[in-house]
């Protein structure tokens, strides 16, 4: 898993590549805690480079969302494809999160 981030106005755009599984998901948790501790509260997570996610990855996604919700932050997703999209759909996560095809559309929603 590779994580990169950049700032677009007040929004932190986080791109995740590779696999979010039981081995790598804790790394995402750690990074996310660091960002929120630094005061970030608006996130667009771009999963277009993510090839695989398991329930361990979904656990991290849900924990991040719950943490943000407690502090009225926002978390939008973009670019889910293939098996990642399928796992989001099966688990019902597709309907509880705001998900966009393109990162640009998610950023527009944040305006």
């Amino acid at each position, binding site marked *: 898993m590779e994580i990169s981030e950049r700032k677009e106005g007040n929004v932190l755009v986080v791109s995740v590549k590779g696999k979010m599984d039981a081995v790598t998901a804790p790394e995402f948790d750690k990074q996310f805690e660091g960002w929120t501790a630094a005061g970030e509260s608006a996130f667009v997570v771009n999963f277009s480079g993510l090839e695989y996610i398991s329930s361990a990855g979904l656990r991290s996604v*849900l924990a991040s969302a719950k943490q943000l919700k407690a502090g009225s932050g926002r978390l939008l997703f973009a670019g889910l494809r293939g098996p990642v999209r399928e796992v989001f759909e*099966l*688990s019902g996560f597709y309907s509880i999160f705001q998900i966009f095809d393109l990162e640009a559309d998610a950023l527009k929603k944040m305006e």
Partner: protein
Amino acid sequence: MKPISELKVAARIESLPALVQSVTESARDYGFDSKLSAIELVLEEAFVNICNYSYPEGEGVAEIKCSLRDGRFIIEMADYGVPFDITSLPDPDTSKDISGRSVGGLGIFFIRKMTDYVRYERKANKNVLSLAVGLSER
């Protein structure tokens, strides 16, 4: 039936990448290219379950055998831990919103969704879980 691969690993999360590599390689060799994500998912969910629950007293092993049966890719996963039938768990409620959702039960839910069948047996002192992934669309 002769297994196409057999592997014994420490029942620790760190064993997962090598296990995935080995099993997906076998699956590819036998023409299951289109099912590699499903195979990886059911393998991870079943293995992580063993890591988390089978050996509360300490460390143990997991034995993974791959074979073909009736055109399906079969993963048989055994451990010597406490008796535990993952197939007895109910499906999660996938309709709750963010604050009401937990990820408990999602592992077995994915296993059910991605396999043609899943079977649990307690054989002597072993938990044996058989996961069958077919080539047809689900």
